């Protein structure tokens, strides 16, 4: 009987909090959007499922050994942890607070005390530490994306890089928005958090996760969910903006066919890009280095088996762990917060501003070159959201001119946007970390 009570007192049904119920519902909603609405399912299925796992009461899957020890707050363990952290108070909150601001040695001491108390890291916490805490997972995803990216359209028309540059305005405008809201007292974001939120406007999942894991890991759940959700919503978000900022004549502009790009150019491009990164912004080197490496493996033609693995087995394995790890940050105490609402609101603003900036830059380029070389509809593809945004450009173009296939033209700014937001990421890491 005693055991029965013990079992019930440790059951989820007895311990579940309102926050956990809400977050499990959020996880189910993400699964619904991914499976039924096809919202970036490769990421949102693992993220949603990870979110549910993270909110299973008493399982502590998303918590470190120290967090699990603090949750149960057995006095003698609390005493040992307080001693390890050199604080007088044995109040669980104080211990957790001291733990987060401790030196590396104190940190290890607190972990040892938790382990001695019989607590262990949760499964998702381990996944998070290995995959995201080390930053390796987003970098490997970026390598795989590089191995999947064809820079041909960009090389055929390098000026489309300007469109990719312009669309990054969404990132920085959002940073300004976030600090503005903080200055007005509506929200409370510090500059690191503001920068991480801005990167949602980069419309590039691994970049957003990489930057957030360095600048504001506690916001990772909200930022990743916002980034992937809005990327899936690109076909809804972009068209009205694109229509509002262009005339019908502009939308009908036909672009000249892209020239043939040689194999050698494709091989050299990642190397040129890498060297430019090396000379100008070393902080972007991990992200763009892995991206260029993936692309070089793809194009060089002599390591096809490595390129295939980078595009398939390896990226799939990493995606599973990355998704579950991001999901671990959807635990109620970390996600259910006014900040999350602010992030969701700022994220969509970022996408809108980026889209508008891309379109307007295309119009400006037409003006400056005194011609009609560029259909402004491809400007919106500069936000990245590869390849969704390019497909949107193509679709709207076809609506107004059924012979006008913009897809390949839009792939140029599309991949330029990936480079642009990786550069923006490097600048932010340099200045605010």
């Amino acid at each position, binding site marked *: 009987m005693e055991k029965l009570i013990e079992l019930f007192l440790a059951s989820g049904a007895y311990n579940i909090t309102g926050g956990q119920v809400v977050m499990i519902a959020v996880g189910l909603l993400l699964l619904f959007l991914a499976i039924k609405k096809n919202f970036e399912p490769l990421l949102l299925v693992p993220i949603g499922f990870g979110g549910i796992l993270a909110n299973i009461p008493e399982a502590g899957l998303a918590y470190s050994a120290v967090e699990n020890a603090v949750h149960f707050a057995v006095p003698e363990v609390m005493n040992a942890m307080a001693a390890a952290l050199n604080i007088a108070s044995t109040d669980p909150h104080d211990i957790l607070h001291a733990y987060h601001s401790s030196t590396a040695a104190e940190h290890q001491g607190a972990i040892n005390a938790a382990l001695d108390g019989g607590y262990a890291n949760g499964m998702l916490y381990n996944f998070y530490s290995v995959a995201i805490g080390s930053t390796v997972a987003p970098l490997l995803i970026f390598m795989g994306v590089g191995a999947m990216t064809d820079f041909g359209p960009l090389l055929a028309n390098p000026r489309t*890089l300007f469109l990719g540059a312009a669309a*990054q305005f969404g990132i920085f405008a959002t940073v300004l928005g976030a600090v503005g809201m903080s200055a007005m007292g509506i929200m409370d974001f510090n500059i690191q958090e503001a920068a991480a939120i801005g990167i949602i406007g980069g419309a590039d999942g691994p970049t957003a996760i990489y930057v957030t894991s360095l600048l504001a890991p506690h916001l990772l759940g909200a930022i990743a969910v916002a980034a992937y959700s809005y990327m899936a919503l690109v076909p809804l978000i972009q068209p009205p903006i694109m229509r509002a900022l262009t005339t019908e004549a502009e939308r009908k502009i036909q672009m000249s066919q892209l020239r043939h790009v040689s194999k050698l150019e494709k091989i050299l*491009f990642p190397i040129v890009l890498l060297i430019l990164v090396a000379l100008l912004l070393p902080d972007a080197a991990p992200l763009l280095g892995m991206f260029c490496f993936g692309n070089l493996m793809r194009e060089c033609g002599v390591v096809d088996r490595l390129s295939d693995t980078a595009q398939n087995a390896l990226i799939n394995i990493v995606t599973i762990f990355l998704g579950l790890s991001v999901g671990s940050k959807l635990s109620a105490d970390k996600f259910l917060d006014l900040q999350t609402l602010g992030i969701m609101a700022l994220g969509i603003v970022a996408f809108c501003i980026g889209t508008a900036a891309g379109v307007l830059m295309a119009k400006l380029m037409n003006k400056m070159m005194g011609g009609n070389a560029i259909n402004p509809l491809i400007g919106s593809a500069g936000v990245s959201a590869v390849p969704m945004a390019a497909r949107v450009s193509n679709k709207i173009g076809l609506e107004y001119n059924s012979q006008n296939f913009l897809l390949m033209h839009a792939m140029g700014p599309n991949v*330029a946007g990936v*480079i642009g937001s990786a*550069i923006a990421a490097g600048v932010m890491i340099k200045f605010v970390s």
Partner: protein
Amino acid sequence: MENIVSEGINLMIFGMGFVVVFLTLLVFATTAMSKLVAKIAPEQPQPKPVKAKAAPAAAAGNNDELIAVMTAAVHKYRSN
């Protein structure tokens, strides 16, 4: 409060400026690279891509062998 706003403005100006400068340099570097490639290693008028070429070549070969190999391929596919 003022402080964080000026930080944000700074980040915007320098960040956006740097992105534009970097991508502008990349436009120049890429264009130069492409011109250099066109000059130094102009591509021969391309034969049709390898895969398309491989097809007739094999098709021209012994038909029995082709069927045997394909069946082996299918066999391997099935056994996966």
